[in-house]
């Protein structure tokens, strides 16, 4: 095989790990590709780089390709989500004023119960609760809306604003925002700067939320099947390595390098291990499955996940109910095509009832050994992709 270099854009976040590891530990090399990893300064820049052909693939917020197919957020380029890079991994955090009120009211900071956290916030807030998120189309926004809508908080009591994650702690300190939902390490950065406390992990709202995807232009995915296959497989091998408990320390070390996240490995390790430090008081909580890269079909681009995103976006932006085309940007077909030659255990179906799995459950798969992990929504709702309510 001729070695080919693929330019890939990413945002310096812990969940960019599969791409960084694929390049650093030779999983890309094994597929005879090199990843030219380009750190993007913002999500809009990253999207434009991919859309206009500066790069061929990108680490992308899972709702972005779906939103673009729905005609939201400009740019008429069709993108494909060829695999999921990470499941869960966001945190909701609050600023000092709210933290103090919550502590005064006896709130326990269990980092688990989405309902009681919402009630506590509703009782503590005076004005609208202003929440910072990294981008208008993101799992962060979707989780916050879903959570507010179905708790005492109520969707009308929150206001969501875009704040670049590196500026999140500063915005919290300045009182521009009261709280945030952000990907690691930026939640932990806010804690270490003493400007806030972590309230909930994203998975307390949805245990199976596809956080980042590997996106390409649709035409590139169709015209470069060979390169796409090599890229998907390299990233899959990297995610398998990342899921091994022994890999954690080395992974944190590599991500912490100057060229990547440029932050202390200890800070990065919190998301990788799920051992989160909640506040300046030093409370520590173990959150299993805080951020998942591999196993239980974590990397599989489920159509039903895209459908959930499309359905939520269409409702929020007043679009029509037909979201099938938007849901088809999660390319389960391409993923299958390029993964058959590996020993990956692929699910028999490409869609599932989202939120229906309460315990690890065996499902039909190509090798017959696939167990799916719980993907529960905090309110117990089940999303049927064929009949979205």
């Amino acid at each position, binding site marked *: 095989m001729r070695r080919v270099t693929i330019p890939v854009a990413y945002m310096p976040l812990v969940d960019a790990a599969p791409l960084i590891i694929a390049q650093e530990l030779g999983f890309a090399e094994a597929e005879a590709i090199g990843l030219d990893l380009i750190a993007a300064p*913002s999500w809009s820049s990253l999207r*434009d780089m991919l859309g206009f052909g500066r790069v061929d693939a990108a680490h992308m917020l899972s709702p972005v390709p779906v939103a673009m197919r729905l005609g*939201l957020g400009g*740019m*008429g380029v069709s993108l494909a989500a060829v695999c999921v890079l990470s499941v869960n991994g966001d945190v909701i955090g609050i600023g000092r004023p709210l933290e103090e009120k919550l502590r005064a009211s006896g709130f326990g900071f269990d980092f688990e119960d989405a309902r009681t956290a919402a009630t506590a916030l509703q009782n503590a807030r005076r004005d609208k609760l202003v929440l910072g998120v990294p*981008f208008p189309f993101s799992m962060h926004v979707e989780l916050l809306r879903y959570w507010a809508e179905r708790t005492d908080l109520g969707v009308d009591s929150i206001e969501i604003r875009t*704040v*670049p994650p590196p500026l999140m702690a500063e915005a919290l300190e*300045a009182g521009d925002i009261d709280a945030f939902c952000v990907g690691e390490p930026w939640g932990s950065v806010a804690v270490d700067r003493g400007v806030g406390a972590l309230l909930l992990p994203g998975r307390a709202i949805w245990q199976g939320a596809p956080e980042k995807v590997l996106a390409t232009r649709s035409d590139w995915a169709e015209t470069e099947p060979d390169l796409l296959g090599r890229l998907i497989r390299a990233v899959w091998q990297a995610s398998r390595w990342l899921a091994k408990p022994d890999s954690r320390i080395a992974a944190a070390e590599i991500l912490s390098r100057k060229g990547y996240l440029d932050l202390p490995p200890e800070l990065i390790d919190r998301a990788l291990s799920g051992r989160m430090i909640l506040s300046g008081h030093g409370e520590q909580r173990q959150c299993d499955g805080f951020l998942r890269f591999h196993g239980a079909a974590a990397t599989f681009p489920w159509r039903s996940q895209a459908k959930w995103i499309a359905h939520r976006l269409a409702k929020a932006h007043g679009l029509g109910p037909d979201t099938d085309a938007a849901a088809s940007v999660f390319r389960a077909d391409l993923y299958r095509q390029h993964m058959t030659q590996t020993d990956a255990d692929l699910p028999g179906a490409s869609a599932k009832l989202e939120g229906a799995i309460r315990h690890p459950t065996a499902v039909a798969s190509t090798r017959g050994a696939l167990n799916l992990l719980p993907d529960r929504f905090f309110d117990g709702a089940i999303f049927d992709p064929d009949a979205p309510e």
Partner: protein
Amino acid sequence: MQNRLTVVVVEEDRDRVIGIVDALSETGDCDVYVIGNYTGLARKIAEHAPDIVLIDIDNPTRDMMEELTLASGPLDRPVAMFVSGAAGGLAQKAIEAGVSAYVVDGLAPERVKPVMNTAIARFRMVRQMRHELAETRRALEERKVIDRAKGLLMKAKGIDEDAAYALLRKTAMDQGRKVADVAEALVTAAGLLG
């Protein structure tokens, strides 16, 4: 219609800001506001309702701009201009896609004037397009109403299409009104009499 452009420059570096503002004032017809502190950026920009935002492409606060452009329709949004040295071919493609105006060579004073001319041209073009679109839509609506009025007259009076139109036009001339208005009145009346 207001012809002056409102330009917001997002830049922290004082020296660069001075150069850019000087270059902008040479182009004449624009009001310039500078935002040098990113706290509450989106709100500050929204307050000025700018036609153009000048910001470096590598500035992480660009994502805040996305939120602003979402608030309005695709043709109404401010033309955000992102300037960079490394963007290369991104610039031209981005402009063609109508997202925004990109320019290479960094946010440098000497580059501002030609860039502003491009942006102004684009701003006028978009406004012209918007105007034409509204005109076309109105003309189409009027033709539909006139057709329906003609149909009503043909049926009620047993006359052909030409005669029906002549009748509409004569009534309009007699009353000093537009044909479309007379047709509209007729269609409304017919609807009421059902």
